[in-house]
């Protein structure tokens, strides 16, 4: 989720080099109940907002997912798991799952290595590197809708820039297809995703790279390590925490992708670019099958939750102390 990203990123890069800080000296032993009461008071507004806008909707969605409900009138048609069995018999929805996986795999194998490559490049003493950094990061600042409208124009059949470029490059077979052909729409969407988000990952990697002490790299050079060896055996391991966070954000972002796709293709042509979030919106707000849409949202939520918990437990364990799944140990 974009809003939590800066905080997470900051926390990561601060201790990208795993140096454990000693406990603050002279810290008072167990807090008195007065302190706790004050903490509780200050938490109340945040907790209320969290309960009303996060927890309550989740509970309501789980609840309505067991009903056949059109959004109007009383919830009186309890159907048990029927919405869920219908969901997993729906070929389009299974396709949505497949497309989610497709985006995840491409993000991890293409987008992140590309972002890492750019970051390493822009970490060199390069003339005007600040300008390049800014340029590559700029798309991330644009809103999703603006990006989507922009690329709708670029991929416009006939008069769009993409068709023009394809013509210059001798790729006439691609002209007029892009978002309009079921077989090209997903790769096209992925290109837009990379354009939009790789700069963000590049920034994460850059921050990570800069916290690697140059002494270590120098020492490696003195020991006779070449550029590739220094990258492979020094930079990459020390960048581990940043990469793990980047992977996490990419996966969650791919699973929940909505606005870019909604504006560019609305899930089409013929469901060939539909994501889970699009299916949820279609059923909830176009077909008024709120019960079924709730079931989709619950599945979407469960996939994200299970992935997050496992990832935190088994991959991020070393990086995040005090996370829910770390079992209290350090």
């Amino acid at each position, binding site marked *: 989720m974009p809003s939590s990203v800066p905080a997470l990123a900051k926390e990561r890069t601060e201790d990208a080099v795993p140096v454990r800080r000693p406990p603050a000296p002279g810290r008072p032993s167990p807090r008195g109940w*007065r302190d706790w*009461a*004050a903490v509780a*008071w*200050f938490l*109340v*507004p945040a907790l*209320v907002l969290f309960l009303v806008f996060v927890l309550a909707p989740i509970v309501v969605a789980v609840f309505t997912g067991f009903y056949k409900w*059109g*959004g*109007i*009138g009383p919830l009186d048609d309890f159907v048990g798991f029927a919405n869920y069995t219908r969901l997993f018999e729906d070929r389009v929805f299974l396709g949505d799952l497949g497309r989610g996986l497709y985006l995840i795999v491409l993000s991890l194998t293409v987008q992140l290595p590309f972002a890492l490559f750019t970051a390493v490049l822009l970490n060199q003493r390069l003339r005007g590197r600040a300008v390049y950094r800014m340029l590559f990061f700029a798309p991330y600042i644009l809103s999703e809708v603006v990006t989507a409208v922009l690329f*709708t*124009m670029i*991929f*416009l*059949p*006939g*008069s*769009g820039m993409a068709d023009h470029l394809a013509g210059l490059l001798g790729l006439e077979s691609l002209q*007029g*297809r*892009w*978002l*309009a*052909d*079921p077989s090209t*729409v997903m790769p096209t969407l992925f290109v837009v995703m990379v354009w939009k988000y790789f700069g963000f990952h590049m920034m994460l990697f850059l921050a990570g790279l800069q916290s690697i002490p140059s002494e270590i790299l120098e020492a490696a050079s003195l020991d006779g390590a070449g550029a590739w060896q220094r990258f492979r055996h020094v930079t990459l391991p020390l960048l581990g925490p940043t990469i793990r966070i980047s992977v996490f954000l990419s996966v969650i972002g791919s699973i929940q992708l909505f606005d870019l796709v909604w504006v560019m*293709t*609305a899930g*089409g*042509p*013929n469901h060939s670019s539909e994501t889970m979030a699009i299916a949820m919106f*279609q059923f909830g*707000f*176009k*077909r*008024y*099958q709120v019960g079924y849409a709730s079931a989709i949202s619950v599945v979407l939520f469960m996939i994200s939750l299970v992935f997050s918990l496992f990832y935190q437990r088994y991959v991020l364990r070393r990086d995040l102390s005090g996370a829910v799944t770390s079992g209290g140990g350090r």
Partner: protein
Amino acid sequence: MASALTSRRSFLALTGLTALSVSLTAACGADGSGGTSADGKVSFDWWNIATTEPGKSLFPEISAAYTSAHPNVAIHTTSLENEAFKSKLTATTSSGKLPDVFQTWGGGVLRQQVDAGLVEDLTDVLDWSSELTPVSLQAYQIEGRTYGVPYDIGMVGFWYNKKLFARAGITAPPATWAEFLDAVGKLKAAGVTPIALAGKEKWPGHYYWAYLAMRVAGLPALQQASTSKDFTGAGFVQAGAHLKELVDLQPFQPSFLGAGYATPGGQAATMGNGKAAMELMGQWGPSVQKDAGADLGADLGFFPFPTVDGGVGKATEVFGGGGGFALRKGAPKEALDFLRFFVLENQAKLLASNGYLPVVKGAESGLTDANKKVVADSLVKATGFQLFLDQAYPPAVGQEVNDSVADLIAGKKTPDQVTASITEAAKSA
């Protein structure tokens, strides 16, 4: 010191909490339903979708004229963009409370609201309904009762480029499906894209299937199918087969599957820029062409959807929809009086703005635009009317019609599979 600090903390926390709860209560309290106060003042809410011209300036003008003639009435207007209006009304409906006067398109959504007991039955109080054209009222009538008042009505038909038709050697607009397919062939042979279609948006595609079903199976069959929830009849399969005949000729512009309707490079722009010979679209077609592409002017013509040989439907049976207002159950009676003022006394104003078509009998003579005149005349002569299927049916069924027909056009579903999917959606809705 410590206790002073704590008390200041709790004071701050309390203040914050109070502010929060006050704003929450205020938010809950602002339900703004209309009513009469002790001093005879009446106020009511009016939700409309007039966010673009001409309605944007015309609607407030009309409500101001009404309130200045009736100083005891206050109208609280909320204007929302089409899609935003629909989501907001869905949310409001599920809370069981509707605004006093609200935009409606009739059909399946209105029926759901009526079934939930939220809409005022106007049948007995609407003593001026005889002044309205029967076609315009039809969408708001459910089982013989009237639940809404129309202010606009229109129909779908083929808008065509006379110049391109002439270039292909087509002398008269096709009157039958066979002639139509023949014309498509001639246009292709002349190097002209026969039809512009917004494949991305799906609803323009459903017009073809719906009209073919009307022409082959007939209007009663469509109504019958929606009550029996069975669309598998031979007429519906045949409608799909006829549509497939058209699709097999590859009549649409290149990359139509990704094309929007009013967006740059979309259906309306393709048509307006003279890059396709025709489009099947509602009465708003010419103004959107002008907006997204260019104005075809005198080159633009209109012909009704052709009949199908052996089908029971007639060329005078029309498919379309309009716009109207409905009242919340228990809305003040002044709200209905306002609607009478809006529809009857402002009919000339609405027509003069060139954005609406007449709902009052005989008012079509006041139209100046040639294309609007043709549509209005066809509506006057109409012998039957079918509301847009994606509005007439419950939303889940309407969307399935759009989706399945889009699949048929893309070659992903057979005519049988289309009727099976729609039937399945109707049975489970």
